[in-house]
């Protein structure tokens, strides 16, 4: 560092004053540092969101920019909330959400509980198990269509090996009602490790002395599990469920490539239906209202849930 007269003066003056003299004030720096991020989010998240709200009251169609845009009030919202198709999609979404979360919590917690036995090599195994969740859902979804092929697919073949059901006698992605389970299987395969990792952190946060005290009190292992392990992991588990819930409500990429919403409308999640309305049928105004309804639903459910989570944490 060069030793200018200003530097020397700065060293002689008290710190607060020095900062004023030698550079921007902390307050200015704070604003300078935060402003670009806020600006970017306003431009690419909030402004578009407000625009979506505005479009939702119109009959605008993005593929026909020349057409006159009419203000239609709440008609789009009314149509969506009274449409049977959309309630069916919401049910499909709910089915997907409930089953993926249940399976992931059960398997994820069990795995974490097993890994927490601290056997040799548990670190390496954890890293390997975690791999699927880091991969591109689109590429994974696409490849699973191959694993699910009735004749040549690995999945069907494995089922044949284990249960004896001929591999070509069922089609995971075709008609027959299996498709909605296919997407649940792939999602569970990908995201169980996520729940597992969070549960593992929860289990490792429980101090040994609590179990030691329970042992002194002669509490059975079973009782220790239900009165110590489960309640202490619960906040972690609920956090995992929150993340999975939000993510799967938005789910688009993996399912689009795996089933495209088919066969028929069997796996048509709300987000996929929204994409069709917006970018295939080009009903921009209508789909904007649809998007707002979905966003409000996630946001509302998440807020209620976070309140419950905080209560559990405080206990």
């Amino acid at each position, binding site marked *: 560092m060069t030793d200018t007269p200003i530097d020397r003066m700065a060293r002689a003056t008290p710190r607060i004053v020095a900062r004023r003299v030698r550079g921007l004030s902390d307050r200015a720096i704070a604003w300078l540092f935060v402003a670009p991020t*806020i600006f970017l989010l306003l431009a690419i*998240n909030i402004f578009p969101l407000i625009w979506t709200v505005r479009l939702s009251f119109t009959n605008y169609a993005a593929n026909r920019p020349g057409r006159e845009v009419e203000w239609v009030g709440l008609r789009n919202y009314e149509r969506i909330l009274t449409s049977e198709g959309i309630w069916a999609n919401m049910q499909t979404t709910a089915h997907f959400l409930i089953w993926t979360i249940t399976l992931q919590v059960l398997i994820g917690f069990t795995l974490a509980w097993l890994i927490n036995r601290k056997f040799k090599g548990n670190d390496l195994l954890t890293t*390997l198990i975690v*791999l699927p969740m880091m991969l591109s859902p*689109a590429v994974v979804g696409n490849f699973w269509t*191959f694993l699910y092929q009735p004749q040549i*697919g690995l999945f069907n073949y494995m089922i044949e090996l284990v249960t004896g059901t001929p591999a070509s006698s069922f089609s995971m992605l075709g008609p027959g009602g299996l498709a909605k389970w296919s997407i649940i299987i792939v999602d569970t395969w990908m995201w169980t490790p996520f729940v597992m990792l969070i549960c593992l952190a929860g289990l490792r946060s429980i101090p040994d002395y609590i*179990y030691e005290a329970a042992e002194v009190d002669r509490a059975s292992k079973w009782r220790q599990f239900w009165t110590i392990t489960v309640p202490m992991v619960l906040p972690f588990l609920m956090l995992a469920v929150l993340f999975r819930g939000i993510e799967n409500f938005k789910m688009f*990429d993996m399912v689009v490539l795996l089933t495209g919403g088919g066969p028929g409308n069997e796996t048509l999640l709300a987000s996929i239906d929204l994409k069709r309305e917006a970018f295939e049928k080009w009903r921009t105004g209508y789909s904007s209202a649809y998007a707002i309804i979905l966003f409000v639903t996630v946001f509302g459910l998440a807020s209620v849930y976070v309140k419950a989570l905080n209560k559990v944490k405080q206990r």
Partner: protein
Amino acid sequence: MSAYSVTEPSRASKSVAAVLVVVYAIITLLPLLWIISTGFKSGPDSISYPPRVLFEPSLEGYVNLFTTRTRIGAEQFAALPPPETWYDKIVRQSGTVIAGQSRFGERFMNSVIIGFGSTALSIFLGTLAAYAFSRFKVPLKDDLLFFILSTRMMPPIAVAIPIYLMYRELGLSDTHLGMILLYTAVNISLAVWLLKGFIDEIPREYEEAALIDGYTRFQAFRKVVLPQAATGIASTAIFCLIFAWNEYAFAVLLTSGKAQTAPPFIPTIIGVGGQDWPAVAAGATLFLLPVMIFTILLRKHLLRGITFGAVRK
């Protein structure tokens, strides 16, 4: 250490746990191994019944991934000079000749450019904001932090409509810059939250000392905080990179040609009568491998990254 501890699991329970976890790991890794091995199968081997575990490795999938091929008449085919390169040879075996390069290389490069570009920008903006949130009194700090996080809850399609319209007006649709800005906007919440956590852990005393020594705030930030936060910044960067790398919804809606990344491209690789699975698998392998390596490198910070810093271990 005592010989007997109530909290140490017994040897038997350890072995049972180990066996169960190994079984799960094998089942869960099977699809990944299948992707990798299918990339090295020949066309017929990839679709044989029962599925082949042992096969003669072939680079056909990789050659097909990078080339486009045409079938020519038998006479023309017989009149061709002998193949000059190893890849010519592989292509000739299936009765076709190379017609040109495929788009895969280009799409892969787009993924690299957009991934690294948006990661650099997210980290740059995120580090500044995280430092300010960590060290200064910012008015409405908690509200701003929550606002930053809540942007992540939005379904991509909800903002994709106006972004599509906005980009069309601004000439940003299907450009690298447009995608970089978009992915930065999505990633910045993760970057700010993770980096704030990492910077919070650096003791303030270091900077205070530097300030007393005559550094300006800015110098203290650059010369004291940044080097201390290097590991945190690196792992945050990898998380941002993985997200941008894997992203599909925005890419498929907002890009079509010039700036299209690999995820929307790989599913469109088709051969005769459906997808060319060895080529798809080859593309998937090349695309997924960097992420697998990063995951292994990141394993210590994984939990923090996936929970936005909510769980730190």
